[in-house]
């Protein structure tokens, strides 16, 4: 009896081990982490945009960045009846969203040689936004240059 029970246990153990062999856990493989530094590409494209900014309004212009790199925005001139060339406007960079441009970076600035705004961006669609921050008494004609990689 004792011999039979021992034998049965042995056979059971062997056969179960065969059936459960695929569930044997393995030790994790050691991994090596390599850090890669990506260099920001310089602007390769430049677009000029001339438009009219209404009092209390905003206008935006979209562009596509094809590789990680630097975007420069220059508000080069502002003019119009009752609009001094030194007027301060809102200038921002963001992403097109619904019927507007949601700026992630924005400043208030006068026009000039620029760039007044610069940053590095991953590939994607972006927009530059010009807005009246409360300084306009008449519609303003503006010119802007956006340079992107």
């Amino acid at each position: 009896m004792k011999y039979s029970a021992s034998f049965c246990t042995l056979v059971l153990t062997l056969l179960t081990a065969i059936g459960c062999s695929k569930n044997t856990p393995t030790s994790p493989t050691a991994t090596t982490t390599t850090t890669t530094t990506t260099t920001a590409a310089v602007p390769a494209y430049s677009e000029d945009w001339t438009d009219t900014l209404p009092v209390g309004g905003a206008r935006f212009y979209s562009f596509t960045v094809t590789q990680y790199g630097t975007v420069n925005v220059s508000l080069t001139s502002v003019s119009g009846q009752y609009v001094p060339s030194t007027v301060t406007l809102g200038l921002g960079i963001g992403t097109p969203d619904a019927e507007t441009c949601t700026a992630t970076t924005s400043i208030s600035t006068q026009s000039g040689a620029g760039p007044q705004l610069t940053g590095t961006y991953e590939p994607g669609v972006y927009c530059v936004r010009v807005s009246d921050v409360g300084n306009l008494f008449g519609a303003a004609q503006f010119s802007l240059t956006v340079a992107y990689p």
Partner: protein
Amino acid sequence: MKSLVMICAIAALASGCSKSATPTSPTTTVTAPTPILFSGTLQPRTSRFYSYTLTSAGTVTALLASLERNGVPAGNSLELGIGVPAGTGCAVTAVANTSATLQPQLREDYSTGTYCVRISDVDGLPQAMTFTIRVIHP
């Protein structure tokens, strides 16, 4: 002896063939489609567009569901397009000239990124009209 081995084998098979060893398919996460409603007034000979971002690749449908003049449906045709925001507008790559219906006029596959739907009056509406567009994307 032989009988003993057979009985042991039955018991081992029953335990060895347990459901825990059965391979299972990987779980797939399905993102519920996102509806966008784009409504407004379209002046004659003008365009309007609406930008949205896809965080998952998939099929985008655009439906010009309604064009109304003083609350009454109008049968005028407009140009409905899907594309990418560019410059001061939406550079469309898929276009349909259509009146309002209840079945999407555009159905396209896109990867992740920012896109736009555009509505344009190219034929010349007799007056400003109210439009409603529904875009469904992943």
